[in-house]
């Protein structure tokens, strides 16, 4: 009897030991698995485009954890892409253009993510045509944010005249975040206009002149005056000759 009791006790101890060994192994495996999940990084690709669907090159992209810790910050490449790897989790993706947030979105990363960010960046086309007719090929354009009173963009130099089927217009396009702006164009004189940019817009400056545009305008005026002069003097001559003929007869 005594020996069978001892045997049962040994079996119970052995079972307990085996159970402890198995559970401890499982726990450690579970712990390592969870650890691996927390350390796993997933690829995140982001394409930044503006309101017209054109790539935003050099836009600043930041990715933060919900708590606010910065995970990634970088500039988009020439085709508007950024590519990075972030651990699985919840993030806030923000795109900055000229220091202004133009895109913000919360993102939960569980696997590889490819996302297109359509940013609130609009095209502002500045057309400089003297009297809406003669293109001004050189000008100095200054764009000031009316709210912050800061110069956000400026351009000085030759302005392109894009090919159009029925118009001739000197145009420069800027890509700006939504907001209020004052645009000043300077050449021989200057002209300013204010606008609230909330979409793609076109602004025409008709009272800015350059030497070339003034020369063209003067040529057109001179042609018109000489045409009138030609018609008037031609008719006068006829009248005189007819009178002369009548007198001669």
């Amino acid at each position, binding site marked *: 009897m005594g020996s069978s009791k001892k045997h049962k006790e040994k079996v119970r101890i052995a079972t307990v030991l085996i159970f402890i060994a198995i559970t401890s192994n499982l726990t450690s495996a579970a712990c390592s698995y969870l650890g691996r999940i927390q350390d796993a990084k997933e690829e995140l690709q982001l394409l930044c485009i503006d309101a017209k669907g054109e790539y935003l090159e050099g836009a600043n992209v930041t990715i933060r954890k919900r708590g606010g810790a910065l995970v990634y910050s970088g500039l988009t490449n020439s085709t508007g892409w950024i590519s990075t790897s972030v651990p699985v989790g919840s993030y806030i993706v923000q795109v900055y253009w000229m220091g202004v947030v133009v895109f913000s979105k919360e993102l939960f990363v569980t696997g590889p993510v490819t996302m297109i960010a359509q940013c609130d960046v609009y095209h502002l086309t500045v057309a400089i045509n003297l009297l809406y007719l003669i*293109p001004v*090929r050189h000008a100095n354009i200054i764009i000031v944010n009316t709210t912050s009173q800061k110069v956000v963009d400026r351009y000085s130099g030759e302005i392109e*005249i894009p*090919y159009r*089927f*029925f118009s*001739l217009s*000197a145009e420069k396009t800027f890509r700006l975040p939504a907001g209020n702006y004052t645009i000043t164009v300077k050449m021989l004189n200057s002209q300013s206009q204010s606008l609230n940019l909330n979409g793609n817009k076109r602004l025409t400056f008709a009272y800015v002149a350059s030497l*070339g545009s003034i*020369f*063209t305008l003067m*040529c*057109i005026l*001179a*042609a018109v005056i*000489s*045409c009138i*002069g*030609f*018609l008037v*003097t*031609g*008719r006068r*001559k*006829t009248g005189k000759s007819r009178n002369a003929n009548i007198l001669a007869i």
Partner: protein
Amino acid sequence: MVLIEYEAKDTIIHRLNPVSKIVWLGGLGLLLAMYLEPQPLIIVFAWEVFIGCLAGISWRKLLSRAWWAFVASIFGGIIVMFWVVNPEQFWRVPRDLACKTLIQLTPPGTPILGHTAITYGGLIWFTAGVLRITIAIIAACIFTFSVPLSDLTSLWSMFLPYKLSFILTSGLRFYPVMAEKTQDIITAAKSRGWDITSKNPVKRVKAIYPIIFPIVREAADLANRMALAAEMRAFGVKRPTRMTTLKFTPSDIFFIMFNVFITGTLVYLWWFCGLGKL
């Protein structure tokens, strides 16, 4: 020789000095050589129509005489258009747009013909080409319609040596006389049963002999008589006096200014703003 002959009218253009009209024609020629796009050519065309209306040209007569030239320009333009497929043929028009194929005729690498297609750029090229030829023909017609030959001869006698000027004038004066004489010879030959309708080229060449010889004889005879007449008038002894003197009136000066300013503006816009460039 000309599509429309001179008509002595008393219009504002007819009264102008031929130099003024040459300035207009020169400016127009310069613009036609520069512009490869149809849009600015419309301005040039309007300018030409304005001058034509002032000259009182008969547009119906012009169309009836020059229709074949317009049709030939259209055919020529269509043929050239098929080969306008190369992006290097365009500087200002976006090359993607210009070389957008509407109908492909032969694929790239086709022997002899090469790549041919109808493209947007080809259509622009074709329209501009037809417009340029049309404008040039109408301008030449307005010029010959409003400038008498005597004015032209007195004009070049101002710049050329008088002997050369006499040769040129005689040559021009000879043309209508010889054309009339040739027609008389052909009519006379036809009345004697002369026929040139044979399809055999050798027979056709042989059939021309009875026409050629009398024409050459007539030409030599006419030249001889003219030389004799010139000699009798002591031609060559000293510089002959001019029959007419060309004077500039204020109307001429205004007309020249008008043309110079229009041409100057359009040349400036072409050079600096790319107006009319492909």
